[in-house]
């Protein structure tokens, strides 16, 4: 037998019920873990930890759209705003207490996600006909429109929205458990979508949209699906952040926020889910570490972005994951999410 020829061999994987129960156990375990952290960890580090959780959700969900499906969206913060305002406005209005908190949280987070997903559907169906930069700029425009609408809305019916002053006095119910529970859910969903037979269609669209269509992949459906799922989790992340900070500023959902999230996806390596997580941790931690250098903070942050792109353009992980994925043992070369082969040919002679 030829030893060098190692054809396809299924990686040993645990039975699904084992994995599913393990995930459930982790989810349940987050509660006591969160309580322990909240009691013992310095609140400043807890704050950063929560931000890490929110950013993981944002980066991983955007990765489904930008990295895996190859649709360049710059409107993620807009979807986040939809979820954040849904959760914030409702919780502030109804002020649930006691036993009502848990179902209320679950309700507003899911509702926020669903409304963000609906926004994703409305934006996605027309704009996903566009490609590359045009899509980017259209989604960016959408984010700005959402911002302008919020600034000009004092209230909707009986609900106070706050307009440009922002929304304040949202009860702070989010904690470690909600944040990382939602993040875990998001990561598991995106992971399973990306690395399943069905999810191969997402990557196929990134690689070659015309060929994917000819192979029977309903490209519009999958593109919109990626967009809607991404928007859903952005909405959930927004909801968590609204009820963690207790207040919302419409300015914090403008395109610079979207760009921060895109930076996480690219820095981690487009298409790599664990990469997005690592980058979300790094890019949340780095600015806090840089507080020591005062006014140089953002200058250094900008330089890190540029240097990182020049010296590690495929991101930290390329499109690999931190550990082998079933059916993907051999690492692929850096994915070029660019449909226009011309860009690739632009190597200097």
């Amino acid at each position, binding site marked *: 037998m030829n030893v060098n020829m190692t054809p396809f061999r299924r990686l040993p994987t645990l039975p699904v019920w084992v994995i599913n129960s393990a995930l459930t156990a982790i989810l349940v375990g987050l509660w006591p873990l969160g309580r322990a952290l909240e009691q013992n960890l310095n609140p400043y580090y807890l704050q950063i930890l929560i931000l890490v959780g929110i950013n993981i959700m944002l980066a991983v969900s955007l990765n489904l759209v930008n990295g895996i499906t190859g649709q360049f969206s710059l409107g993620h913060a807009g979807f986040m705003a939809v979820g954040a305002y849904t959760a914030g406005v409702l919780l502030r209005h109804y002020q649930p207490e006691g036993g009502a908190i848990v179902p209320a949280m679950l309700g507003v987070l899911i509702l926020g996600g669903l409304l963000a997903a609906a926004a994703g559907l409305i934006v996605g169906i027309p704009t996903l006909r566009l490609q590359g930069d045009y899509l980017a700029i259209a989604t960016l*425009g959408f984010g700005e*429109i959402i911002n302008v609408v919020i600034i*000009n809305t004092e209230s909707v019916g009986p609900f106070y929205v706050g307009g440009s002053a922002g929304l304040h006095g949202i009860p702070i119910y989010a904690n470690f458990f909600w944040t990382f529970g939602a993040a875990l859910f998001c990561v598991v969903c995106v992971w399973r979508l990306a690395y399943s037979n069905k999810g191969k269609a997402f990557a196929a669209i990134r690689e070659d949209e015309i060929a994917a269509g000819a192979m029977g992949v309903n490209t519009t459906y999958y593109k919109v699906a990626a967009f809607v799922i991404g928007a859903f989790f952005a909405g959930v992340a927004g909801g968590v952040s609204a009820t963690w900070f207790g207040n919302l500023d419409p300015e914090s959902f403008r395109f610079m926020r979207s760009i921060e999230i895109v930076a996480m996806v690219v820095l981690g390596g487009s298409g790599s889910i664990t990469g997005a997580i690592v980058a979300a941790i790094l890019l949340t931690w780095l600015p806090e570490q840089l507080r020591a250098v005062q006014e140089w903070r*953002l200058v250094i942050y900008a330089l*890190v972005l540029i240097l990182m792109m020049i010296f590690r353009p495929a991101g930290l992980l390329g499109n690999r994951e931190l550990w082998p994925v079933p059916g993907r043992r051999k690492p692929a070369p850096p994915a070029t999410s660019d449909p226009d082969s*011309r860009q690739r040919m632009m190597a200097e002679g």
Partner: protein
Amino acid sequence: MDQLIQQLINGLSVGATYALIALGYTMVYGILRLINFAHGEVYMVGAVSSYYLAEWSMGWTHSLWVSLPIVVVGSMVTCAILGFLIEFLAYRPLRDRPRLVVLISAIGVSLLLQNLAQFQAIFGPTPKRFPELIQSTPVLYNAAHTIVLTNLDILSLGLSLGLMVIMTWVVLGTKTGLALRAVSFRFDISMLMGINTGKIISFTFMFGSALAAVAGTIDAIRYDVRPLMGLMPGLKAFVAAVLGGIGSIPGAVVGGLLMGLSETLVKGYLPSAYTGYADAVAFVVLIVILLVRPTGLFGRVAPEKV
């Protein structure tokens, strides 16, 4: 009626800025298919450098005709050098990389320039009024003073149209322009044809940045100078370029003027409660244009799929 005419003048005057910035976008995009996200910041640097040049030159001369050329040419040269450096340091090493990577690098450059400019030692965050080089004064007006056209309105409109003509001539009438068109048409082949593509791209960036410097100088004179002034005009000028058909020189100018007009008319004629939405206009226009006619008004018509 007078008010409408005045609003049209206002709109064209705002649009002239967008047009000038859009010209630079269109050049760079036409050749590299790259949204030069830092272009708005180059415009800002143009304004900042013209501010310093004006301060310096007015320290030893009182003649407008000495000062003005120094300011304009000086800031154009500064920005051309900046444009060259940005391309050389932040984009050129990424030439064969996916666009997303280049875009992040561009955003990095943009953030860098914004934050450097906010340093007290460099410029500081506070808006600064331009030294009194040219005052905005009405030159054409009717008896009731209900229609006013200022010298700066005329200057900015004239410059954007004039530069449009010059650029068209450069692209269509010179040897460099021919190479430029070749590179923009087929990058790979033009390289084989012996065109120094690196040089052409540098030229494009320098030219586009110099145009942004002109816009920056005019706006510095008309309004004031601030470190974050490039953000929104940068975005809106890009929308203008797309509206006119990206890659098209007259398209950029027409797109810019149309953007200015539509914004002004929304502010001027919508009921007060809705004028706050004026900033959304640009983006609504953008999305509609992209959906109805992605090639823009003057864009090359893509091969029709029958």
